[in-house]
């Protein structure tokens, strides 16, 4: 087939250069190509428009309406935004989310970097392959199933975690019913499940650092820590920027773990922004309010990302 196409092309090019009406043919061909491009792009663009753009615009518009899906939407102006501003639960949920993001993302990066550095240096290849898969596997599991198992493990009365702690004479910890412990459980479960992706990114970043740099620096007398600080981290910084931006965006949307493990409790201790969106929409049937919270969350995500890119000017080195 490729031969045919090439022959055709050769023929057309040939004819175009000899033909006095060459410009016209070229224009027609360009038009034809444009149409063809449009035709091939149409399904994707149509799909994005229908399933992404329209819903985005609709959900932003919905934030100015009151809608319970049964009766017709009613325009309420900025009421939804005023009501979420005045709602203590929403405020707490956003604060929780921000705190969660800070702790979880830092922990995630820290764990991922340490493990990646450990795996990348001084380890037999087969073991390296094993750990690469092992650390990535939790990400493949469904977050809800993991969370259900975790809620059994951390059950105060019958959970395995407290049983093991009991062996070393630590009294049962109310993992899911005290505010601090339940937040800790959520962070741990989330980080355990999600650091795998950051880990892979960092691993990729590490392997692209030329080994000569390490060799040269060790001749100059630099030890492991010095190398980490002066070579590994700076050269890893572009990867870390990508990893942290992605980690922050996904952490801001945390839902499964707190929804399944604690249902946002005790009190509002583990309620997050996406949870209040879900509850407003599907439990309390206030879709307008849910959209308003969604808009605020989107702005928060955009702001967080902008801040990261701004900071990156100072901390990221492109070699």
């Amino acid at each position: 087939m490729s031969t045919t196409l090439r022959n055709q092309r050769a023929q057309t090019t040939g004819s175009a250069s000899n033909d006095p009406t060459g410009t016209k043919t070229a224009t027609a061909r360009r038009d034809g190509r444009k149409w063809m491009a449009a035709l091939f792009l149409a399904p994707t663009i149509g799909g994005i428009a229908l399933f992404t753009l329209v819903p985005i615009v609709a959900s932003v518009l919905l934030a100015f309406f009151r809608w319970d899906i049964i009766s017709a939407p009613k325009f309420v102006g900025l009421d939804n935004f005023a009501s979420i501003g005045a709602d203590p639960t929403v405020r707490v949920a956003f604060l929780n989310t921000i705190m969660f993001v800070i702790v979880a993302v830092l922990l995630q990066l820290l764990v991922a970097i340490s493990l990646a550095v450990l795996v990348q240096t001084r380890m037999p290849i087969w073991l390296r392959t094993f750990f690469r898969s092992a650390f990535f596997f939790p990400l493949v599991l469904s977050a809800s199933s993991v969370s259900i198992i975790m809620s059994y493990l951390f059950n105060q009365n019958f959970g395995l975690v407290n049983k093991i702690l009991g062996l070393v004479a630590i009294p049962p910890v109310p993992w899911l019913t005290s505010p601090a412990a339940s937040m800790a459980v959520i962070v741990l479960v989330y980080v355990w499940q999600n650091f795998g992706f950051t880990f892979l990114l960092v691993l990729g970043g590490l392997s692209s650092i030329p080994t000569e740099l390490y060799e040269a620096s060790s001749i100059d007398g630099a030890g492991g820590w010095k190398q980490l600080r002066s070579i590994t981290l700076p050269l890893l910084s572009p990867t870390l920027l990508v990893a942290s931006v992605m980690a922050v965006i996904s952490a801001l949307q945390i839902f499964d773990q707190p929804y399944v493990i604690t249902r946002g409790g005790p009190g509002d201790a583990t309620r997050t922004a996406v949870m209040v969106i879900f509850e407003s929409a599907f439990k309390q049937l206030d879709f307008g309010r849910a959209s308003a919270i969604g808009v605020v969350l989107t702005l928060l995500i955009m702001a967080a990302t902008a801040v990261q890119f701004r900071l990156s000017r100072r901390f990221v080195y492109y070699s």
Partner: protein
Amino acid sequence: MGDVSRRAVLGVLGLGALGAVTASWPRLTGADIPGRGENALSVAILGTSQDAASRAKLVQAFQAAHPGIKVRIQAIQGADWGDFFAKILTMVAAGTSPDVVLVATEGAQLFAERLAEPLDTYVKRDRAAVQDYFDDVHPSLVEAFMYQGSLFQLPMDFNSANMYLNTGALAKAGLARPDDHWTRDDFYNMLGAMKRTNGNQFVPYYWTNRLFGGVVPWLYVNETSFLKETRSTGGSWFWDTFYAKDPTRAQRSGGFQWLEPNAEDPHVAESFEFLRTLVAEGLGTSPAQGGGNELVGQFAAGMIGTTPAGGYWVEGLHEAGMREDQFDVQFFPKWRSQRHQFGAAGYAIMKTSTRKDEAWEWIKFCATKEAMEIAMPTPTTTPTRRSMVNEALYSGKGPKHWQVFYDTLDKFPTSGPIPAPPQQAAVESALIKNVVGAVTGSAANVAPALATLQRDLDLALRRN
């Protein structure tokens, strides 16, 4: 391979695409969803497709009686009733609303207020046919489905928050099953005795944080609730027709109303303080949220002394290997009163349904004793017909005092339903999120937690 023109390739691709669209047309248009567009009465229930299949006999029996009406049971999965209602609502929004929905007390008023058709004209019309049902069903259960003077559902099954007792643990503590009028103090002492004699891992009182069987039974026995309970007027057309001779006729109304929060009532604080003491002294668990799925296994393994549950638990305990003499059941202990909490469920006709008469035939049929016996062959719940709660249902499975399940209504006729106004979802989350804060920690925590509960309930009730 040399001579395939671009046109031919495009043509083949185009044909392929066309073929794919044609082949998947039913999927793209949703026409392959079972029952969509089919000429049948669609009945939505909470459960899995196995649950729908288990009702096949019921459907067969119905169709034998009404050959002209085709019925399709649509099982909708959900973690709890709230989930189920949300899915029904999305079906309504999508224009594919079912004709009949099985609704529990939790959603009774939400449906009555917005989605369901009153049954008033139907029960009046078919009075002779349904009188037999009402003669067999306690009026408290029916009153739970009255809303502003109209009847919206015929309850099929119910469960009260009774107290399950682990007889082995009781025996270890040197105790026997308490008598019917045991008090809160008896209960407290019993937990203490069990704790002393049953080892470290043992939990004397296990409770979960939810509307049914959580903090609410303790509020009811203390003659209070976290919402102000009032009754609406009306409904005498119904009571005078169907329950004219009932001894509790005078106390019946047009339905329950929960219009204002009541979390700062001193009795509410008392109940919370009692539960807080249980938690602080290690007699009761710090209540985890959720339905307590792991609870059956733990109770059957003898790790739990007592827990509030209804008749629905019997089959589960039996399946978990508990013999009928290893557990028993008793009324909730008395405090200021012994008023119990119950939850029930029944079919509601959707306002949007175009087959309301057929829907009513289904409901009427399901309320017959024949149908209820087909629908509830095992004690996975308690039938609302008094005559069905009998030795035969519980034989070989226990508990010994199964009479407690229905006696709860007969002996304590003021027992009330789960407090569930139309804003139930918001009310429930307000309650649940403030319970743990109130019952864990020091006594000084109770008042502030209840103040927050009051504020959250106020917000929840003011919505809509």
